[in-house]
């Protein structure tokens, strides 16, 4: 039997995620995947995994995990106090966890979601080519649900990385979680795809903000509270696809930011879409945080994405 990690305590919402279930949205199958794809990939890179490996996404309150064999482990994303047995270990750095040792999460200092990369990756069965957990449709992960106490999470083989090849992501690579929590997170958006549904001043209001992430927010979507975004056209659009990061506006004028577990299609007009490079920032928001939006150009969006990719490729040893 392949080695595994045992779940002693599950944390608030800990799910197995990989890059997502792409290629099946035409059948209505949601993409899912990490809320902060950057930190997910950092966690994999730090332990020598490929970008397609599955990690654990930890939400607000972390788990306690016991390892059946020696593994290289890294925690990336939200800033948590992390312990291996009685030793405090740095995050954004790979550490060797011995057979029988426990990885524990303590206090959270910033950000909402951390990713646990484990050398060899998590090897639950793929559903439609992905291990990503989508709770609503019960797909992926462990029978489509968050991990629970007593679970045994299967791990893949991990080659020669343990214990030699340690890596660390330097400060500044961290996304979002080191910001001043009193100030809104600034996120860049591109206008559209349904900008003709909105008055010109709706874009001023969108950029003035700020918007509060309400408690009614989860992996599917963030419901935002703030100034109302007025429409110039009544009614809804004829339903079409709903990319991650789109800000859809129901008749109430209160925008809804669509996230990883969103439905594949929707009927509310979409005023703007968060650029791919800023999705990780949004994925680190928790209820009670605030966010502001700033329009940018496609050129800026791509430049930001390319500089992020350079950081990731360097970490992956591909630069």
């Amino acid at each position, binding site marked *: 039997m392949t080695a595994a990690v045992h779940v002693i305590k599950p944390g608030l919402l800990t799910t197995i995620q990989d890059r997502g279930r792409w290629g099946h949205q035409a*059948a209505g199958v949601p993409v899912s995947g990490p809320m902060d794809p950057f930190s997910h990939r950092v966690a994999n890179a730090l332990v020598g995994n490929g970008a397609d490996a599955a990690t654990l996404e930890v939400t607000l309150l972390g788990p306690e995990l016991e390892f059946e064999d020696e593994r290289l482990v890294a925690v990336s994303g939200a800033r948590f106090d992390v312990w291996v047995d009685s030793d405090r270990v740095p995050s954004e750095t790979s550490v060797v966890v011995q057979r029988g040792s426990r990885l524990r999460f303590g206090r959270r200092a910033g950000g909402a979601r951390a990713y646990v990369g484990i050398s060899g990756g998590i090897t639950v069965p793929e559903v439609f080519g992905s291990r990503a957990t989508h709770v609503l449709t019960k797909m992926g992960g462990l029978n489509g649900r968050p991990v629970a106490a007593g679970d045994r999470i299967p791990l893949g083989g991990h080659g020669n990385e343990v214990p030699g090849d340690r890596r660390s992501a330097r400060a500044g690579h961290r996304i979002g979680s080191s910001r001043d929590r009193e100030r809104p997170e600034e996120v860049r958006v591109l206008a*559209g795809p349904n900008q003709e549904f909105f008055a010109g001043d709706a874009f001023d209001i969108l950029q003035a903000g700020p918007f509060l992430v309400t408690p009614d927010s989860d992996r599917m979507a963030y419901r935002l509270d703030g100034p109302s975004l007025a429409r110039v056209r009544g009614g809804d659009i004829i339903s079409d696809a709903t990319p991650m990061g789109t800000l859809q506006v129901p008749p109430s004028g209160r925008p809804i930011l669509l996230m990883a577990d969103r439905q594949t299609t929707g009927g509310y007009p979409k005023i703007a879409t968060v*650029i791919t490079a800023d999705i990780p920032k949004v994925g680190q928001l928790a209820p009670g945080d605030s966010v502001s939006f700033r329009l940018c150009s496609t050129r800026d969006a791509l430049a930001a994405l390319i500089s992020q990719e350079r950081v990731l490729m360097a970490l992956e040893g591909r630069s």
Partner: protein
Amino acid sequence: MTPFRVVAAGDSALVVEFEERIDPAINAEVVAVARRLSDAPVAGVRDLVPAYRALTVYFDPLSTDYQELTRRIEEAVSAPPDTASAQGERVRIPVCYGGEFGPDLEEVAAFGRMSPAEVIGLHTSTTYRVFMLGFVPGFAYMGRVDDRIAMPRRDTPRVRVAAGSVGIAASQTGIYPMEAPGGWRIVGRTPIRTFDERLTPPCRFKAGDAAEFFEIDRQEFDRFDESAQR
């Protein structure tokens, strides 16, 4: 050439929009363009999502040649019309109407000022186009429903609608592939599993298919159910 435009949805998706109407001919364009782009894939494209009047093309901006993608989209739109063999399949769906399986059948009958049997007659005498899938895996949006029974959604959606439930929402009809919350008027239930990730293909429908319903009674439903589980 068919009027269309390409709109960006962020930096990783393009929406190919046709005329803003729910119309089988327009939807046929969407389905045809999706098929052409999937038959000869463009490097970097991650997903193609056909909807009523728009096709969304998801791509990885770091590995996609944007000029090439837009050129290929234009080519796919202007390609000559499909032959009949490229059209969708015909799918026949057994439905046990009314009773505990169709709690809203009486209301739809009252809405149409007719008997429940006449509602069933109208619902089963139409061939519906599958315009798109969405909401949950395998949920097909089909139309159009005869105007006389095209009752709008419930004001308050149900928290749970059973798997297999067949509903009406104004001019649309559809089947819940799994238990889900929903506001459609439920008139019956099918014993067929319309989505099962263990089957190939997992989904009974795809956009562009033609669907027909036929009535079965409770006994046939139960027998069907048993044989399907065996």
